């Protein structure tokens, strides 16, 4: 029977020849992940199970990234729980401040997740690794606790939806714009419980950072996972990084899909998601009237090297508007170093921006850029819910790094071509 890439990965991890959508299966997990918000709850639950230690000390990754460097005493207590648990169980993949990064930037970069893997993480954006051709999905802390003990979890096999992207991208249109446009089209529950499979010539030509960005936001359409078939671009990315063997899976040409969407990308402009839902999208040309107080470039969606390069390219030799604060947050220490080598940090600082150590920070309204009532921020992050970046009366607009850089220069939402 023909299967999709998602079904094949699930079948192999369930020890079955085939699986069908709707089936409840028990699967082997290649890596289980937690952070400084979700792992404390998982650790407490884990201790109630009655096992001496974790199932595999190389396959439990703990990444404090949300409120670190610790923003207050309570956050410090939570981060300390991770550190102590990691020591007690001799976890190989615990990442202290100074060696850490935002989890979904860090794990692919460090080769801890790879094509064909099945990864669960107590963080909804765990679906990012679909960009590598892995099945990965977010779960809660209790699911993480069970997986830490057993190395297994239960899943319902999702139906798959196929998204085909064709045509030539307009200048300044990125993976972020494609995924925002798609969510705008299908809605925040348009792929509820389903797999989003991104295909077509545009995806085949998209770089790895763009692929990770697209899969990262699959959860914003309610999806269980986002996935892109691995290819040469994937091979080049994982070679020399992968810490484990990896497998390239592909969908059969006659696999069954619950729906198929096709987009002509030559019609798509850079996109802006207006408050307070990621699906509330408009083309940038219809958004330029919104003045801004803050611009954030970073997060597990757009805090990677290519993102910083694009933004710095637009900011080089320019000053940002007096009206705005610009906060740039690299996804990992490795990206930080590379940005330094390439002179990007100097560009951001000369433009009048702040450059931070890696952290989720303002993305979830944690710290490092919280908004006051009435303030408006354009961010390269993934959620613009009420109060997401601070006061419930503040507003978040989502966009690509190019739009963010241009908007910082003009102090209002701007098309990159206005400053380029």
């Amino acid at each position, binding site marked *: 029977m023909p299967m999709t890439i998602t079904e094949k990965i699930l079948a192999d991890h369930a020890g079955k020849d085939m699986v069908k959508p709707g089936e409840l299966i028990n699967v082997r997990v290649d890596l289980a992940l937690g952070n400084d918000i979700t792992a404390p709850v998982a650790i*407490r639950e884990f201790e109630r199970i009655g096992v001496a230690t974790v199932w595999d000390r190389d396959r439990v990754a703990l990444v404090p990234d949300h*409120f670190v460097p610790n923003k207050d005493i309570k956050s410090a207590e939570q981060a300390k729980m991770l550190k102590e648990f990691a020591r007690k169980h001799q976890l190989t993949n615990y990442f202290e401040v100074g060696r850490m990064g935002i989890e979904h930037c860090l794990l692919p970069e460090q080769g801890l997740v790879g094509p064909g893997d099945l990864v669960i993480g*107590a963080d909804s954006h765990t679906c990012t690794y679909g960009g590598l051709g892995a099945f990965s999905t977010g779960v*809660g802390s*209790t*699911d993480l606790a069970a997986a830490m003990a057993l190395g297994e979890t239960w899943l319902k096999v999702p139906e798959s939806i196929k998204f085909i992207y064709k045509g030539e991208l307009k200048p300044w249109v990125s993976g972020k714009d494609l995924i925002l446009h798609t969510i705008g089209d299908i809605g925040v*529950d348009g792929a509820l419980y389903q797999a989003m499979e991104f295909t077509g010539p545009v995806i085949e030509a998209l770089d790895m950072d763009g692929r990770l960005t697209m899969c990262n936001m699959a959860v914003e359409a309610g999806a269980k996972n986002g996935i892109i078939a691995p290819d040469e671009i994937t091979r080049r990315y994982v070679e020399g990084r992968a810490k484990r063997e990896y497998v390239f899976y592909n969908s059969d040409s006659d696999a069954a899909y619950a729906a198929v969407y096709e987009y002509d990308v030559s019609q798509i402009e850079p996109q802006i998601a207006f408050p307070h839902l990621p699906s509330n999208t408009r083309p940038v040309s219809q958004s330029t009237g919104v003045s801004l107080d803050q611009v954030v470039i970073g997060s597990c969606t757009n805090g990677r090297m290519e993102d910083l390069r694009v933004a710095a390219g637009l900011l080089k030799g320019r000053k940002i508007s007096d009206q705005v604060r610009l906060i740039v947050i690299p996804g990992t220490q490795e990206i930080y170093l590379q940005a330094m080598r390439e002179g990007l940090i100097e560009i951001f600082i000369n433009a009048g921006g702040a450059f931070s150590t890696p952290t989720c920070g303002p993305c979830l309204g*944690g710290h490092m850029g919280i908004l006051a009532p009435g303030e408006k921020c354009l961010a390269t992050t993934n959620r613009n819910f009420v109060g997401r970046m601070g006061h*419930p009366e503040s507003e978040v607009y989502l966009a690509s790094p190019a739009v963010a850089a241009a908007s910082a220069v003009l102090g209002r939402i701007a098309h990159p071509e206005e400053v380029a």
Partner: protein
Amino acid sequence: MKKLEGKAWKFGADIDTDAIIPARYLNTSDPAELAKHCMEDADPAFPAKVQPGDIIVADKNFGCGSSREHAPIAIKAAGVSCVVAATFARIFYRNAFNIGLLIFESPEAAAGIAEGDRVAVDVESGVITNLTRGEEYRATAVPPFMQQIIAAGGLINYVAERVKK
């Protein structure tokens, strides 16, 4: 078997976990602390007015957004006996079962129940009765595996049993 009864508090579509428990309170996972801010960004008065046994009734995609288990924990600790929604976001759905917060998926109930209605829920059969309007709705059946998790008292008890064997 077990019957729940309480007053309905109505919410709209796409209630996200940031609205259920904002991240500014996530530097703790203490249920009592979280309960103090339950649903705060959807309705700031909710923590003060909710009574033990009350029922949250919402439209589609309840609990979308982050994976924070703090969301169902906050609702449970606030004394809410169950959540009825047209649909649930998937991570919230899992989390609710795993921690033992009762949830019922029923588009008819979500449409038929108004704020303030008295609602009774038969946990076993999934029959939801609107006592104020004299209407009855059915919830989508829960898969047998998930019923086992509920019967065990949550995922951790279920796994602990398995580990002992």
